[in-house]
């Protein structure tokens, strides 16, 4: 196990920037999730740690070794690929034992270790099968077993659950978390699925356009987004973002003046108010901070999602599952100042939270 350190790492292909100059430190034994939309540079960053991509500049350290120019085989990392990357001509047992065979372990030693990790991921009865005879979940477990069979210093996982169905994804997610907690191996996990990120990570790195937008615990990323991108990307439904401005000492949100909320920022500066759907309260119009008209009403089972038009903004409110509204109803919304987030509309950076 070892810490991973990226020092001013950059990846360019000609004029195209895959990853802008970035630095990051991942602690020994930490479960770090790279989260972001497609093309944000998260996979490229991880591939540079693996040695599958050469950084255009910067340094990569694993433990106390500078591995920037080291071959993948010399970095002591293990990787689980999105498409599993299994060897179709080998049996499950030989797939799991491949890293040991390449490193010259004896046949008996290999057999014992393969059996040990196969038991850990409940594959011991499938060791003689070939990958094509396995289900998606079983293949993913083979890939996991192959990664843990030699206890590497760093685990790298590139969207390992994206090819599985929703139910299997939940169980495999728990499996991965349990394994990592048991082995305490430093892990970098790439995903665009924020639920995976929130449930698995010790810390999350949110990326966009090759640039790290925020690094923090899941609670920090969700509760104190560093900028408008993070605010809009993390959360389902995402955070509501409405234009706001301070005029005459009062805060105006989506064109409506709000009393009882201390103004943020200087007079006349364009702001964006962010508030999560669950932090908004549906109230009778006469008790409300904001007024709007119901655009859509959805029952999700455990809650209702009410989409409300307020001026030119369309926001989402998560309410009690017993609440009912018809499309076109006039509703009132109360904002909890504790959960309001303010961003500078120009710089898109977070200003403060109430």
């Amino acid at each position: 196990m070892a810490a991973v350190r990226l020092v001013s790492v950059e990846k360019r292909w000609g004029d195209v920037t895959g990853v802008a100059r970035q630095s990051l430190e991942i602690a020994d034994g930490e479960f770090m999730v790279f989260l972001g939309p497609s093309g944000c540079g998260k996979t490229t960053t991880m591939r540079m740690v693996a040695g599958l991509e050469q950084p255009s500049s910067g340094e990569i350290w694993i433990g106390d070794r500078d591995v920037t120019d080291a071959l993948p085989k010399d970095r002591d990392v293990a990787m689980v690929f999105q498409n599993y990357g299994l060897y179709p001509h080998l049996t499950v047992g030989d797939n799991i034992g491949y890293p040991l065979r390449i490193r010259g372990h004896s046949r008996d030693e290999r057999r014992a270790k393969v059996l040990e990790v196969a038991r850990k991921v409940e594959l011991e009865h499938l060791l003689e099968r070939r990958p094509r005879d396995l289900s998606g979940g079983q293949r993913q477990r083979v890939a996991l077993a192959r990664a843990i069979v030699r206890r590497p210093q760093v685990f790298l996982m590139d969207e390992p659950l994206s090819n599985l169905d929703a139910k299997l994804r939940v169980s495999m997610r728990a499996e991965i978390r349990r394994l990592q907690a048991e082995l305490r191996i430093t892990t970098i996990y790439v995903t665009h699925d924020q639920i995976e990120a929130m449930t698995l990570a010790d810390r999350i790195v949110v990326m966009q356009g090759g640039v790290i937008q925020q690094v923090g615990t899941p609670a920090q990323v969700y509760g104190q987004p560093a900028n408008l991108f993070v605010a809009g990307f993390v959360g389902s439904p995402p955070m509501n973002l409405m234009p706001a401005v301070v005029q005459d000492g009062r805060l105006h949100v989506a064109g409506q003046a709000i009393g009882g909320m201390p103004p943020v920022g200087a007079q006349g500066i364009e702001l964006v108010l962010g508030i999560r759907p669950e932090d908004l309260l549906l109230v009778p119009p006469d008790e409300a901070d904001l007024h709007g008209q119901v655009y859509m009403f959805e029952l999700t089972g455990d809650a209702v999602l009410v989409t409300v038009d307020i001026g030119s903004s369309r926001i989402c409110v998560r309410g009690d599952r017993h609440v009912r509204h018809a499309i076109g109803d006039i509703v009132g919304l109360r904002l909890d100042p504790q959960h309001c987030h303010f961003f500078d509309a120009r710089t898109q950076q977070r200003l403060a939270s109430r």
Partner: protein
Amino acid sequence: MTAHVDLSLAAPLTKARRRRGQHGLRNAAIVLITVVWVLPVLWIMATAFKPPSEAAGLALWFAPTLANLFASFDVPYLLGSRLLNSVLVTAGTLAIAIPVSTAAAYAFSRFRFPGGSAAPLVLLATQFLPPVIIVIPLFVVFRNLGMLDTRLALVIANLSFVVPYATWMIKGFFDALPVDMEEAAQIDGASRLMALWSVVVPVAVPGIATAAIFSFVVSWNEFFYALVLTRDHAITLPVALMSARTEQGDAWEIMATMGLFIIAPMLVISRFVQRYFVAGLVSGAVR
């Protein structure tokens, strides 16, 4: 009395009759095509065992003899040494062409380098030149090197057309293989060469086997270069056929005997490697 025709029964009967007719026609076409393909082979097989006096005839019944076989191995035909030449030239060509083509195909498929996308096309474009143009410089070079009428010269000449085609065939196969697999091998501790050998090649066996079969067939049957570049010692089987055309006339029974030796490996190969060939040719068509 009025006759009633049950149309509901007549229609299916007509359909069934038409279907039977179509089946009959189709079977007849299959038989015809099979006969056209198989008949020359059967003719060669039969003629090889006919006495010279009956060789030109089409008689189906004859007293089989091994005299042609013995005559073929004797002077002036020397089938034994010609066969050895063909075996060595083909084996030499394959022994060099397949590893070289596999390595080249892997490089073209996986590495990005200046001119990397044009290089395979240039390689293939060299094959668009007629062999009669290429054979002249080859003849001059081999003559200056003192390599005329040697097996090595034939191997080199064969490589000039086998390697480009084999490279293209194997490259197509490599292109269809996911890169994840070999990246996984590299992370698991293999060098790139070891990943190629232990992961990529075993998975690409159908494609490599297809290229090997193709290379074998064209090398075994190669006539033109062998005709121009050999005179006596390195003559291969296809050229040896010419020796059966003498001033006394064409010795069909000797040609047929030599023909047997030319087609025999094809028949053996087709029996054992058909599944690889089919798998190689259709790979990538469906996932």
